[in-house]
């Protein structure tokens, strides 16, 4: 059972990583004038869309998402609606946090918001896929004994990696090197993406090596 779940997770993460790479490479081939620095916002949107679409589909196919309690269409619709709402609220939340951390308040609001969208699609969306629109559960997952399945542990690792990556991404901004990737928010979105990719790789590996210690009370 362990092997199966880890294998499923590994392939799921491979698909996600591939989607990120494709979202970088494909537009570069297809769209003229596309470059990761030059049209950075476009790149962010590509990656966000790819990650959002692929995770939704993959998690739905894998059946990780908690099953709906009721099977009425209305309930499912309201759930979908709440998910979208949470997605948007999370974008606003990240935007606020970024501004509080020192992002320009007015000048480059669009850039900041794009980064917020990227962060949301890398972190919040995953929470939505694994736990459903339930903030209590989200908070619960991020405690030592809060993970109730392999996927919860994996969620902990990827989200932490993404956020830490974005945090580290802010470091080069004040340096006076005048490189194109030091422009806001390039380094942060790179950091977040690299963190996400690292998390995708690290989570199954870590779980594989610690599977003896991991005990989940109920699933």
């Amino acid at each position, binding site marked *: 059972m362990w092997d199966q779940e880890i294998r499923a997770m590994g392939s799921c993460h491979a698909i996600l990583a591939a989607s990120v790479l494709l979202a970088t490479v494909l537009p570069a081939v297809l769209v003229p004038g596309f470059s990761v620095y030059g049209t950075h916002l476009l790149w962010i949107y590509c990656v966000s869309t790819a990650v959002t679409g692929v995770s939704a589909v993959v998690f739905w196919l894998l059946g990780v998402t908690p099953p709906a309690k009721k099977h009425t269409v209305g309930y499912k619709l309201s759930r979908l609606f709440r998910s979208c709402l949470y997605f948007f609220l999370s974008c606003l939340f990240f935007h606020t946090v970024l501004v*509080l*951390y020192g992002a320009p308040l007015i000048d480059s609001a669009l850039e900041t918001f794009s980064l917020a969208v990227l962060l949301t699609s890398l972190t919040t969306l995953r929470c939505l896929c694994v736990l459903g629109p339930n903030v209590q559960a989200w908070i*619960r997952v991020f405690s*030592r004994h809060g993970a109730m399945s392999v996927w919860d542990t994996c969620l902990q690792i990827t989200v932490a990696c993404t956020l830490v990556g974005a945090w580290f991404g802010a470091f080069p901004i*004040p*340096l006076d090197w005048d490189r194109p990737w030091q422009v806001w928010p390039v380094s942060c979105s790179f950091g977040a993406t690299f963190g996400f990719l690292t998390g995708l790789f690290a989570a199954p590996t870590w779980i594989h090596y610690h599977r003896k210690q991991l005990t989940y*009370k*109920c699933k």
Partner: protein
Amino acid sequence: MSLCVSRMRWFPVLSLLLWICSVFLCGLYLFVGGFLLVRVEVNRTSSCLDALFPGQEPERDFCRGQPRFHKAVLLIVDALRIEFARFDPNNTSPRPFENKLPVLGETLSSEPSHSRLYAFRADPPTTTMQRIKGFTTGSLPTFIDVGNNFASSAILEDNLIQQLGQVGKRVVFMGDDTWESLYPKRFHRSLPFPSFNVKDLHTVDDGILQHIYSTLEGDDWDVLVAHFLGVDHCGHRFGPDHPAMADKLSQMDRVIRSVMRRLQKDTLLVVMGDHGMTDTGDHGGESQKETDAAIFIYSPSPVFQKQQAQLEPEVVPQTDLVPTLALLLGIPIPYSSVGQVLLPLFPPHGQSAAGALSQQEALWINAKQVNRFLETYSSVAKDIPPDALLHLRTQFSRLSSEYLSASRKGLLSSPELTSSLQDYLTSVRDTCRATWAKFNAFKMAAGLLVLALACVSCLILSELSLTLIKENDSIKSCSVVAVLAGVCVAVAQMLARGFVEVCWCVFGAALSSELLFIWKTYQAKSPSRKVANFRSLRGFLTPAAFILLLRCASLLSDSYVIAEGRVVTFLTLSLALYVPIHLNWHGLLLPQTYDSPKPSAVLPSPALPNSVARKEANTLIACLVLVVGSAFLSLFFHSCREEQGSCQPSQFLAPLSRMQDEKRKNLHYVLSVCALALYTYLIRNWMRSCGNLNATSITVFTANWIFPLSSVSLALHWAVSGTSEDSFKNLSELIGLAQVALPRAAYFLLTTGLLLIWLDPLTVFIKHKSSAQRLASSRLPPRYRASIGISPQAELHHLIPQIYQEMRRSLDDGELNAGAEEDSGPAVEAYGLGTVYSAPLLLLCGVLGVGLLLLHPEGMALAFLLLLLEMGAVLHIHASAVNLSRTQAGGFGVPWTPVVLWALAATQFFHSTGHMPTFPSIQWGAAFVGFPGGHTGTVLPATLVTLNTFASHILFAVSCPLLLLWPLVCEPQSSRAARSSTDAEVDEAKMEIRLRDSPVHFSSALLQLSTRYLFVHGAQVFASVCAAAILRRHLMVWKVFAPKLMFEASAFVVSCVSLLIGVTFVLRTDSAVSRWFKRLVPDVSR
């Protein structure tokens, strides 16, 4: 019961703190002594009379003589290394910087009696500003020239430009705008161009080229100075080995050719570099590539003798330009010059044309001037070693008699005389250079070593505070060893060298005591303690330590130092956010609402009931929002430094009196007054809600009257100083009076307040119950109801009355003896006992804060309010975190996270009160608050400016003990209620009285907290010391790192002093509390 008489162990706490502080200071003293070269400026000016020949030709006025040259052109090519100027025709594949100035080589070979090329050796620091100062004053400028005011960089020492101006020569300047800041309004005409942007290779040079030729052809100049920057900037940007450097040097070649073509017969041309550059294009240090620039001297008429190979120097020190130029142009040598005339430019005695100075005469004038300067300097400053000074004096008196007898006999041309004059000048220069212009590597290394060991000792001290408090003898042996070592070093120096250098005694003392301390603590380790140590080491590897590491690392990069305000805010926010995430990770933030049947072995058993925990968690989140909000808002109060390109300083930094727009002025005033009022209200309201405002002590009087009154006088002072001069013309006298009286009244009130708080810090109100009330209370079923809730007087309804359990019991016992069996209520109620330590400390900080605000511009009231809010929020976050994660009520130790947060917040608000670690950003206006007419002494204004600059460090350091007290103040209320319902007998809320139960733990926790705080600051100081030592030759060392080091070091000293004040105040309060208990329960000696 020994509780009531036991007091804290004040001696070990204070002595250990003092010891660690002084060790840190010794390290700083040593390092700064080796790194920051200090020289005293002599503000005297040479005059024409000084240059007279002694007693012989009184009629010959030096300035009216015929000078050798009437005009001079100084082409300064910044960073023109000597290799750039040499021309090697055999070099077939030159590198980009080689053979690019062929004009020099061609001229040297075609006109050997017209031109010379030398290596022009600069003295460190090889930075442009210091170099310009060096080759105009002829002195050896250091980083700090005492006497120069920090506010502007204008040169006040005697210099060439001033001397030229005095004899009426017209100096025209064009190029690097550093000159304009050094010599404001001294030039006949000046065309400065911006020099700051290192990436810009052409602005300055093109600007000069547009004007230089027309100026040269015109006739309104005598001395032309043109300072090209392109080569230097090219070096910084690309390094010397780059095609751009070839282009730049070829351009310079064309410039020199065109200038030479336009020279007149009586014009001297000097082409020179101010310093060299390393292979990476940097400069500032003392390697030969940085110091050796080129100097090329050319005259259209022949000046140089052909066969003088033995007199030709290869290397010309940079100081030598000043006396040479001065004597060639016929002006007195500037007073502080220590240079030596360049002999090849002067004819030997006997061969000179009428009026021109011969070599020996020039040397004699030069030697006399140098001797005059040396005498003056040694009378103002004592940094030249006395034996060297004595040697120079005897040398000069011998020379003097030699020269006079030779001139009487007409034997001036003797080569012995020439060489002995040269020897004298060289040895003066070498002595001065050894004193001023050399980093003392040994002192720097010694300082680094002492500082590093001090950090280690500080860490050990904070981890082993409990055992050290108990032992109590290590400090004695440490100080004895320190004194012994110091004396030993002094005696050894006395025997070996004949004089004592204090710094090495300090080094011996500090190092030996540190080593002894570390060795003793290492020896004292029992196996069990080793385990504990290991655990505490692992406890140190936390995000708090990581953030501290990042902070220290950020001090090693100039970009991060420039952006320090934002960097620190970023780190503060990150660390504050870490607290709830950490709590949540351990499942402590949210009470377990979902009911999964989990075994209690997995979950930590909740220390608090759910409702209390949720309340604590809500407080924590609310305070986190407050911290984040105030940190974010505090960014709007930042000032700007010149390196930050597009930066607007905060509007709140401008004083009201300078504001033009009336509406905005009023708005700012109202905002500031509101902030001040809220500041005062918040502190008083907190004290009232803790029941500390009911007593009749003088501290309460201070809180009730002096504190608000001083705020009012501050607000009035702002109003008066903000009124524009012309609005109330007939009241101008009154306004002038108020401008002096109001701030002085505030000073007086605040000083009185601080003194009163110190005299009697108790804020406890005692109510003796009448027997009737005692009867009434005895009817109430739970025994302690009376002490918690019911207070018969209306004005007491806010209070949290506290009864000290043990004291009550002892009184009960007494009553039992008297036979009053039915009595259950306590005989004495003491209100405000629960916050007996924190309330006076808070008030002290509040009063201090108003005093510091007085020294700031009005708008900073908002920043101070944010400071108070952030302080309170951090305290509450810390308290909630402690309460949520408290497993057992044991020691009072404060974890690292809040301490690091506290120290970071101090730096954060250093920036948010409009300060920057640069000298131009010092708010000199603070010295004139209440003293609009200026001062007579220097101590008072220096103190005021220091208080202004380090206001935030002072406030955070003084209030540091609050971190220890606050978790006790915020002890969860309902847990007490819940428990007291089950076990009323045992658990009464004790709050800070808990500390009195275990004075040893209290002392050790206080020591631990203060050493941790010192360690955080000490680590930052150590990092900036390392930055200064490692990056000695960085482009930004004198602009960024050295000022940062000085500010960090001063902040550390101020923090040390303030922390000691805060700790001493807590100890003072403790002794007052003990006395109070003794008075209350006199027969407690059981």
